């Protein structure tokens, strides 16, 4: 999929980030899917989540996953809008809406992870 564009803001950076975040997401998403399904309980019970959340590195993986996934997905949607040569005011409205949506859901997701208690005092593990 080649894209040739010639304005100052060519979108080349977001094109590169789309590919890099995509590659990171291959590992994160497929890993997540296996982890959540190797046993029927592992993806669907509170205890399984609580158990994982005792390891801070696991929380960090989730936060990175959420951030990259949101960025990649919303940037992808923005890419679709870019196909349509929108009027400037529409462009700004769409971009702002996507941005707010992303920030809101990332904040919500972070809040979820941080709200899960540590059962014992464990530092980085």
């Amino acid at each position, binding site marked *: *999929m*080649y894209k040739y564009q010639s304005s100052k803001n060519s979108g080349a950076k977001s094109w590169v980030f789309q*590919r890099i975040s*995509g*590659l990171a*997401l*291959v590992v994160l*998403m*497929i890993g997540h*899917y*296996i982890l959540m*399904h*190797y*046993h*029927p309980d592992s993806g*669907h*019970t*509170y*205890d399984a*989540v*609580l158990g994982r959340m005792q390891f801070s590195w696991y929380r960090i993986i989730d936060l990175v996953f*959420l951030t990259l*996934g*949101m960025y990649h*997905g*919303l940037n*992808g*949607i923005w890419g*679709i809008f870019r*196909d*349509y040569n929108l009027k400037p005011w529409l462009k700004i409205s769409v971009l702002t809406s996507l941005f707010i949506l992303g920030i809101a*859901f990332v904040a*919500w*997701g972070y*809040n*979820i992870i941080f*709200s*899960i208690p540590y059962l014992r005092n464990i530092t980085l593990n």
Partner: protein
Amino acid sequence: MPEDTGKIRKFDQKEWIKENISYHKDSGSWAWIYHRISGLALIGYLFLHVYSLSTLTAGREAFETKMKAFTTPFFMALEWVLFIFVLFHSLNGIRIVLVDWADGARYHKMLYKVSWIAGIILFLVMGYIMFSHEILKLFGK
């Protein structure tokens, strides 16, 4: 994203829904359409996912009440179906990156076929991972 197949044809991205319904397609435009649909499905799922995980903040009871709905056979099957989107978007995404950065334009058609074969195998393997416990239960362990 018209593909170089010898005949010259313009693929109109703005009319992608119409293009999807129209009759002339080669593997390249199919891949592109599926990539878009699977990407939209995944980001849609991610929103729903965060929403349904939000009961985690309310503790065990709230979360498990919500999750009960998602452990019915119907939703288990849906989770398997979702994996089709995950697989297509992942494998085709890798193919796109190879085409862009690793001279994949020379072998992208072969890659596309290999991706389908790998995808079908991985889909079945995931089916086994997801349902082996249930199947074994059916036969009394």
